[in-house]
């Protein structure tokens, strides 16, 4: 038994998500990520169940574990009640803890995700919030999205939302005591430690690449190569 496999087995998602895999490939057949990316959940499950430490380390460094969309379509169909999507989540967690996520282009994107999402939660109490969800970085928000953004108070008020107000209802300002609760939950449950892992390893990688933090964010958020795609 080795360090990676043992560590993975401590994760409840792996305890739940991995029974004996028979390598049938049903998960890959149903998987939307496998259709788009050079991705094969069957192989990932198989590597983990093989307990091959070297192969697991390769996975932790690879783009492969970052291709999954966590739709869980595979869970419904697996004849052995495995959950490849959950196995991938455990691998991602370990890749972050070990710092190996910065070895792959798709893994490095965790820096941008952490900044944006945990920023929204800790600053606003929402996963998505109009203060940071902007047409400029989301042009697919459309001309209507731009219109919402330009007329934000009017548009929300008309449909009964209470944007940024001290009230009950949609998009209210989350009360201070609830925000304090969220901050303490992050501290008590290890979210702050996980974020430290992400930021420290990302900073190291940015230095290695000769990029400032801002440049690094721009790079990981906006730029990707075609080699990930199936038809490349």
């Amino acid at each position: 038994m080795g360090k990676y496999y043992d560590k993975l087995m401590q994760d409840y998602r792996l305890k739940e998500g991995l029974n004996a895999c028979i390598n049938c490939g049903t998960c890959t057949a149903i998987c939307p990520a496998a259709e788009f990316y050079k991705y094969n959940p069957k192989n990932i499950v198989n590597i983990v169940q093989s307990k091959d430490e070297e192969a697991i380390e390769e996975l932790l460094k690879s783009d492969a574990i970052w291709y999954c969309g966590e739709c869980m379509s595979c869970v419904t169909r697996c004849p052995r009640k495995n959950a490849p999507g959950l196995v991938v989540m455990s691998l991602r967690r370990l890749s972050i803890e070990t710092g190996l996520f910065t070895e792959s282009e798709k893994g490095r994107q965790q820096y941008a995700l952490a900044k944006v999402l945990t920023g929204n939660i800790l600053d606003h109490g929402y996963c998505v919030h109009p203060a940071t969800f902007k047409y400029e970085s989301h042009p697919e928000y459309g001309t209507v999205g731009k219109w919402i953004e330009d007329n934000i108070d009017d548009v929300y008020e008309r449909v009964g939302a209470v944007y940024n107000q001290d009230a009950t209802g949609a998009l209210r300002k989350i009360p201070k005591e609830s925000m304090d609760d969220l901050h303490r939950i992050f501290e008590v449950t290890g979210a702050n430690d996980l974020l430290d892992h992400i930021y420290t390893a990302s900073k190291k990688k940015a230095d290695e690449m000769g990029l400032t933090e801002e440049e690094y964010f721009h790079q990981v958020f906006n730029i990707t190569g075609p080699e990930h795609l199936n038809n490349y």
Partner: protein
Amino acid sequence: MIYEGKKRIWSDYQKEIPDDHWFFARSCIRQNFNPGAENTMLDIVRNKLGKDFYETKYHTTCGGIAYHSDVIPQETAMTIIARHFALMTEAGYKNMVVSCVTSFGLYSEILETWKEFPELKAKIQQNLWDACRKEFDTPEYLAHSSDIMYKYRYPMSEQAKYPLTNVHTGKPIRVVEHIGCHYAKMFPSKGVGGAEYPYVLSGLAEAFGGEIVDYPERRHCCGFGFRQYLVKANRGYSLSNTYKKFESMEPYKPDVIITNCPGCNYFLDRWQYVLSETNGKVYGENGYGIPVLSSEELAALVMGYDPWTIGLQMHQVAVEPLLDKMGIKYDPAKKYEGANGKQLPKPQAPTLLKCY
């Protein structure tokens, strides 16, 4: 005998949804993009059906999107959700309804995991006490808001002002549905009809007189994929999956797409705009797209709510072709008004997709 067996299997997927007294939890995505849908649901259940739905301002995000983007630990998401259970417990409720499908999937996963690993539940109880000095009971019943619309489909249809009938042809409105993956793919027994034949949206549309139209990629993911959409560099994943669905449903000429997941609703709506701009293709009739409505928005239209009061102007794809087919009276001049009748400038017209 075989029939009895089948009935038993099917009975696993029938939910005994409680009739009243709900603790309501909003969705981050829906509050941003379609807050009118949540408000309208509350108006229907409280004021048209006389039910008790409670909400509190102390509720926060469940953390689901951050959890599925792998930037917060499972324990963190569990403790945030345990805090929501505590808010429900403090308010004296036992039934919880969440407006978001990501939340619904995550709450279900957590409840199932705690059943299997009670030591983990004990740890979360301790976490919540340490962080917030709160204690909780788990809900006796957990529902998604589309379950609520399904549950009340007949009382709502008794109040229907505009049933799902095409007033020009006399035929039923053609409905395709898209169920959010996290509604039942992980835990089929948690969803009405299970994962393979979910009935939660079909049952609603049929109760209103619509015709459900099947299409090959009906169960395919909308492509959100969390990190696959949120990181700009990955967004092609999201777009490609939705594209696959549109190509698949197009030949069946649907009048409307209905959804239960706030995220899917947004993607099926906005990617139509992007596909029109990038591929030069529009999927609906006469230069319009295919309108995309949530179960709550559909119910509200059928019951005669004003389309702009419930916020349908916040969709990019124009809903007017559907309103016209259903014979709904509306004032086009009011579509882009602000609060209190204030006239706002219209959104810019897209290149191809007609918006108004």
